[in-house]
């Protein structure tokens, strides 16, 4: 057992997002004293997500989540939209089995509720404070985190949980993690547009508390790796683009223009008609997948959520909130177990073991090839055009004699300039990666 008597708390959690609140809740429930620090003047004030939350982790952790948390709509309709300059092809998936599987959320509303649950469980939440650095002791090359420093004050603790999000300056300054490369990051640019519930129901074909999630690929990012999204909230829609940073920089395009043209696209604009902009924001997305996870613990420190690179871009969905919550829970379990049996030195390894035994590690491994696959540029343009050409051949009836669909498809493929071997290669790689 740690013999340092003068700690301010057993654990300091930096960041009151999905990962930090999940960790703090579990730690408090295990009887540890916990301080949660967030730089926003309220939890959630700095956080922005798409955001479709897959609820399994939240319902496991937070009592009464679906009944009481301020969620927006239950996603029962998923649309995958391939968008071209003047055409679109969509897959529309509705399924009653989806009821409760995913909900749309707005983080400025959700995160204060998550933090309140931590407080009810006994954690102390300190918003409005930026942690400036970790306090690290170096005893002959043996480095150990002893606490955090904020605004000139030091808080000492047995363990720090770095839940400080995708930029995680804390774990970088500690020398634990290196700065991600541009191809491992994307910037999400989002507008929240007010629409009344009746308009949402009519335009998106949903009723009551149901909602729709549109994942858009193709012309929406103008050839830049990434995609667009359009999600319904109770009385607003979340709409925006996610742009991979290496591609964005190479394109020379102005990021806000790409966002604006997506919202103005003739197939997108009707959904927003008459809507008032409530907020415009942006945030980085960790897209490096398994390769980005790397070091996630050192003596006295565990790194969770986006800070540990735990986000999955599968091409159609960005998933980070559920992974953040589950990683926070795995870290809390490892810390609580280490405190109980006095084996603080094994906590980092135990956290990694628990993480990779859970769905988080399994899914990160399953999608390990996704980032490289999604760097194939054809995905963001040529394929959408190809699909539209095939369907144009089937539905556009002019005076020309009809051809079998197969020959239309062949013609479209030849005309697309992609080439059969590339289609086959992309198809095979896609099946393996996704």
């Amino acid at each position, binding site marked *: 057992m740690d013999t340092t008597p003068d700690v301010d708390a057993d654990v300091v959690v930096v960041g009151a997002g999905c990962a930090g609140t999940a960790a703090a809740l579990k730690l408090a429930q295990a009887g540890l004293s916990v301080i949660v620090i967030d*730089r*926003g*003047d*309220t939890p*959630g*004030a*700095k*956080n*922005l*997500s798409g*955001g479709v939350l897959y609820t399994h982790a939240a319902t496991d952790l937070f009592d009464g989540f679906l009944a009481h948390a301020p969620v927006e709509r239950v996603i029962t309709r998923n649309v995958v939209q391939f968008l071209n300059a003047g055409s679109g092809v969509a897959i529309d998936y509705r399924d009653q089995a989806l009821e409760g599987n995913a909900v749309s959320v*707005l*983080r*400025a*509303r*959700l*995160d204060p509720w998550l933090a309140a649950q931590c407080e009810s469980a006994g954690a102390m939440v300190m*918003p*409005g*404070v*930026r942690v400036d650095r970790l306090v690290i002791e170096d005893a002959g090359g043996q480095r150990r985190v002893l606490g955090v420093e*904020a*605004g000139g004050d030091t808080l000492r603790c047995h363990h720090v949980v770095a839940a400080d999000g*995708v*930029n995680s*300056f804390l774990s970088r300054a500690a020398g634990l993690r290196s*700065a*991600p490369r*541009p191809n491992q*990051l994307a*910037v999400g*640019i989002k*507008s*929240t*547009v007010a629409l009344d519930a009746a308009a949402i129901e009519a335009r998106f074909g949903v009723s009551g508390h149901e909602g729709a999630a549109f994942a858009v690929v193709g012309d929406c990012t103008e050839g830049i790796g990434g995609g667009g999204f359009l999600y319904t909230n109770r009385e*607003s829609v*979340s709409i925006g683009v996610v742009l991979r*940073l290496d591609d*964005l*920089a190479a394109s*020379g*395009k*102005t*990021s*806000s223009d790409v*966002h604006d043209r997506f*919202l*103005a696209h003739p197939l997108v*604009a009707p959904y*927003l008609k008459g*809507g008032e*902009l*409530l*907020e*415009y*924001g*942006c*945030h*980085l997305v960790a897209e490096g997948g398994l390769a980005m996870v790397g070091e996630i613990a050192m003596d006295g420190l565990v790194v969770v959520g986006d800070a540990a690179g735990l986000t999955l871009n599968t091409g159609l969905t960005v998933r980070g909130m559920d992974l953040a919550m589950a990683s926070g829970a795995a870290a809390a379990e490892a810390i609580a177990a280490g405190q109980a049996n006095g084996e603080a030195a094994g906590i980092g390894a135990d956290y990694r073991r628990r993480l990779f035994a859970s769905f988080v590690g399994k899914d990160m491994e399953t999608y390990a090839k996704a980032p490289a696959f999604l760097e194939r540029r054809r995905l963001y343009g040529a394929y959408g055009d190809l699909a539209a050409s095939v369907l144009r051949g089937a539905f556009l009836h002019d005076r020309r004699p009809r051809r079998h669909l197969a020959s239309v498809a062949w013609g479209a493929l030849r005309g697309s300039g992609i080439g059969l071997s590339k289609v086959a290669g992309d198809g095979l790689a896609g099946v393996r990666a996704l």
Partner: protein
Amino acid sequence: MTLSLAERLGRNSYQLDEELSHIEIDQVAAKRTGAGKILEAVCPAHVYTAQPDGSVGIEYAACLECGTCLVLAPAGVLTWHYPRGSFGIRYREG
């Protein structure tokens, strides 16, 4: 939905830190590397303006604190950290 970017940012809520900018730029390095054009294009909040002489104007009050500029700026050009506690963007939707 044809708001200018400035009008758009005007819908947001900010708590401006009047005393301290959280962004600093090495203008010599910026001129040498041509960083202005890159920063101007990538920042979703139009915080940066490339000046004709190669230096870079900064409107730190508009920053949405994403971190994109820091990743894409040529090495040595930018010093960027989060604003002090409570200051900066205050999302009400998120």
